[in-house]
């Protein structure tokens, strides 16, 4: 079954047209009713435990500046509403896009004068989940900033590139074979609208980059360091591909 799908994939062209808007489906749509219920009901969604941690951090003073996020941004349900739906965004100081985690860490280091939080650390996932959940239900709306264009294109290139020992591209699974089975898993369309999310297989929260690393390892390709520009470019492309889908943070995935 796995082998026959792989055989099909190896013969398929590496580049295919993007999924039309009307056929776009969140990873949610491929889940069992039980997993959907776990995501929908906030008292049974394990990602909410992390969101609550994030809320506590939002209100805690830290760093040499002894300021909390709330001291400057006040009520997150107001100030952070819609923010996750339009990241990654262009950062003039770095001359390239930054994702939400990097934006949060910029406030940590520059505004709070605290040490940056390591990628995939509990605290960074918590703050990121707390900020992103303020956009829950809002459609993904990537900015029209022309400065982002070359980076988005670089992300699309990685997405279409055949790579790894299996010589596969992301698009061969996620554009050409979504909805089919790969071993026990249904291949989703690779939308980034639920992150950070609780994955049952991880028994933990994880970022989009952790998910992308999983897919790269599955392709037996070399993965990047967390925070690498390649991941940000890919995220930028995935967000533009997912335009209009609702943010689900904290989503649950199998």
């Amino acid at each position: 079954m796995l082998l026959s799908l792989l055989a099909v994939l190896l013969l398929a062209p590496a580049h295919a047209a993007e999924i039309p808007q009307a056929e776009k489906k969140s990873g949610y749509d491929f889940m069992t009713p039980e997993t959907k219920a776990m995501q929908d009901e906030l008292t049974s969604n394990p990602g909410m435990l992390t969101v609550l941690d994030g809320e506590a951090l939002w209100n805690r003073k830290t760093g040499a500046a002894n300021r909390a996020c709330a001291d400057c941004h006040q009520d997150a349900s107001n100030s952070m509403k819609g923010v996750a739906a339009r990241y990654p965004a262009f950062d003039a100081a770095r001359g390239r896009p930054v994702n939400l985690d990097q934006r949060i860490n910029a406030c940590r280091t520059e505004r709070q004068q605290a040490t940056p939080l390591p990628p995939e650390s509990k605290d960074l996932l918590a703050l990121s989940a707390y900020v992103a959940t303020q956009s829950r239900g809002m459609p993904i709306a990537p900015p029209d900033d022309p400065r982002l264009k070359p980076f988005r294109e670089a992300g699309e290139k990685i997405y279409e590139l055949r790579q790894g020992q299996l010589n596969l591209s992301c698009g061969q699974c996620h554009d050409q074979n979504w909805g089919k089975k790969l071993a026990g898993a249904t291949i989703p369309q690779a939308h980034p609208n639920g992150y950070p999310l609780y994955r049952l297989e991880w028994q933990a929260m994880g970022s989009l980059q952790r998910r992308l690393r999983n897919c790269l390892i599955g392709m037996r390709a070399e993965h990047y360091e967390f925070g690498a520009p390649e991941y940000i470019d890919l995220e930028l492309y995935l967000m533009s591909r997912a335009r209009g889908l609702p943010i689900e943070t904290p989503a649950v995935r199998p």
Partner: protein
Amino acid sequence: MARALINVPKTAKRGQVIEIKTLISHEMETGFRPDRVGKLIPRDIINTFVCSYNGIEVFRADLHPAIAANPFLTFTTVATESGVLDFKWTDDDGKIFAEKANIVVE
């Protein structure tokens, strides 16, 4: 610090069967996983969960290493009288996590 989410109906009719849902953050370290240098990480799981209703135990569970992290338990009881539901989780470390919820029975 552990966090728990509890879902108990705020009100119920006397004699009604109510569903209670509890979720708590815990690593549920199985004791079978090696760390980076190959040494086994000591087991640390929540081993007991108890729910009491106005001081009377109505539900108890023994948990084992095959149970996933952040255990989610749902169970039912009969709404008998207004009062407090107490929830208590105990882990291998001897740490106790406690939560309560109020219910009004009409």
